[in-house]
């Protein structure tokens, strides 16, 4: 099967990994903390929640330190990182001609199914990231590089969870 030419190809995964590692090292070296994403998500969510129900947020021991009373949930470096990630992803996609309105999915499911799965998966991921105090970026990547015990346990469980449910979900992706 002859494939039509691609707009731009991806980096070799090892080269991309080295680049990502250098970015991570830069973050650790300059600021003392690594990369992250779910922290920013959590703060955006709490911000929205505090707009709707501030008294409720004040009474929740998990949310109050972020948004209770005078605390401003968006006053946190992870929110800035989320902004940077969006900008960086957009610029890279633009340069490579990959900014395109589309739905990425396996060939055997409909768009609607894919969206429903994305929402369910995202929900589980959000819940898990809250529980584990971080996601693949903050825990697995950053914590893994500084050899945190909890982060390595976390990373193993991510792969375990993924592989355990890969077979039942094969139709969604292949």
């Amino acid at each position, binding site marked *: 099967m002859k494939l039509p030419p691609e707009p731009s190809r991806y980096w070799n995964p090892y080269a991309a990994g080295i680049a990502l590692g250098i970015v991570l090292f830069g973050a650790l070296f300059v600021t003392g903390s690594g990369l992250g994403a779910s922290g920013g998500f959590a703060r955006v969510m709490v911000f929205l929640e505090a707009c709707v129900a501030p008294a409720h947020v004040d009474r929740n021991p998990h949310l109050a330190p972020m948004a209770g009373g005078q605390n401003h949930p968006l006053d946190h470096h992870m929110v800035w990182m989320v902004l940077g990630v*969006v900008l960086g992803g957009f610029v890279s996609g633009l340069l490579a001609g990959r900014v395109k309105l589309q739905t990425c999915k396996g060939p055997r499911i409909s768009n609607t199914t894919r969206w429903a799965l994305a929402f369910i998966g995202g929900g589980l991921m959000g819940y898990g990231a*809250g529980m584990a105090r971080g996601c693949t970026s903050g825990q697995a990547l950053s914590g893994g590089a500084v050899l945190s015990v909890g982060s390595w346990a976390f990373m193993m469980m991510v792969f375990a969870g993924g592989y355990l449910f890969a077979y039942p979900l094969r139709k969604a992706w292949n």
Partner: protein
Amino acid sequence: MAPFTFTPWTSAMITVIIGFFFGFVLERAGFGISRNLAAQFYFYDMRVLKVMFTAIVTAMLLIFLASALGFVDFSRVWVPPTYLGPAVVGGFLLGVGFIIGGYCPGTSLVAAATFKLDGIVYVGGVLFGLLMFGETAPAFWGFFNHAGSLGRLTLYDLLGVDAGVVVLGVVLMAIGAFGFAEIMERIFAQPHGPGTGSFFSPSRPEPSIRLKAEKCACPLTALWVKYFRRAAVATALTIAVATLLIGQPSAERKIAWASKGLDQSIQERKIHIDPAELLGLMHNNQARLVMADVRRPSDFNLFHLLDAQNVNLRELDSGWATNLPPAAIVIVMSNDERAANEAWKHLAVQLNPDPQLPVADKSRVYVLAGGVNRWLDIYQRGQADSPGPETAATGDDTCRHRFATALGSRIACARPTIEKAPRRTFVAKVRAVIPTHHAAGGCG
């Protein structure tokens, strides 16, 4: 010495720049498209494992080499604290969410930024999940905060070896994992390759964008990739072995690096506080006061200040300071000052933001001027006119006071009441220091 502290706005700008490169590399790695990520779990494109492990190994090698060479103070680098129970349960949920949804939070941002509709929906899902977590977390608050809560714990602390040993082990493990990934990709290779259904014609498979196809198309690239891999493996092993041979800095090496600033702070008596200031702190229930008594246990048993902890230098060096509360103010004391000054150096290199520089209102560690001897002069014998902190106690660090029995802290002068204690005037030196990191840390 890195890491550095910045003003809030500078810090925000730096974080945006770091985030920019983070997002850029994620997109270049192909992580803006869910099938490239999900492929990991079907073995035909193990991009996720390759990128992640390479990134972890690269950052780990650089940070621990920099720490061994004294360019970075690893004790001030954020290590996500270990909460084993929540990490295992949360990690599992995350993995399940990964295979169902096809992204993780970071990559979904990249997907959304490049207009992938499933990425945008996924971002909404993550926010919803976090909302649900915030609402339900109080129901299992004990599990969330205490199940396997081990604080800042690294693999090499757990094993009791130098960091270099674990660094080398991780490099070897990663090389094994990459070999495994290459074999798996060959076994599970798919003829059609991964594709992305376009928004308008969902079932049309998009053309492949895989490395393998490129390699076949261009033999020069294949050759380059081969040499690149060999060079990368050789470099990684060299750095790991070098890190192991140099070793992570001991307390003595750290003190030697910072000796100028440390000695100057002691000489200029910037970190010696008046006994009356300590008394004030003992009665201040807002201060997170931690008193480290570094005398021999026999002296400690005879008399010590209420709530003081008896520690020796070895304990101070091996993790005592690691899990102090973030805003703790540490006061070190010995009978006079010699041992306390020495212990102060050991703590200052671990706790102070810039131990290389003379202390300027930023210290988290102080020395009780005149030690326990002067304390007892004032609060047991009532000599309110004892010299202030500008006068060093030059004694030989033995206890000049006699106790008939070992009283410990069961005596009034172990914590005199403010009203009855002799009055002294002094210049307050202890400043409340804002912790550099929030308890929640980098993520979560």
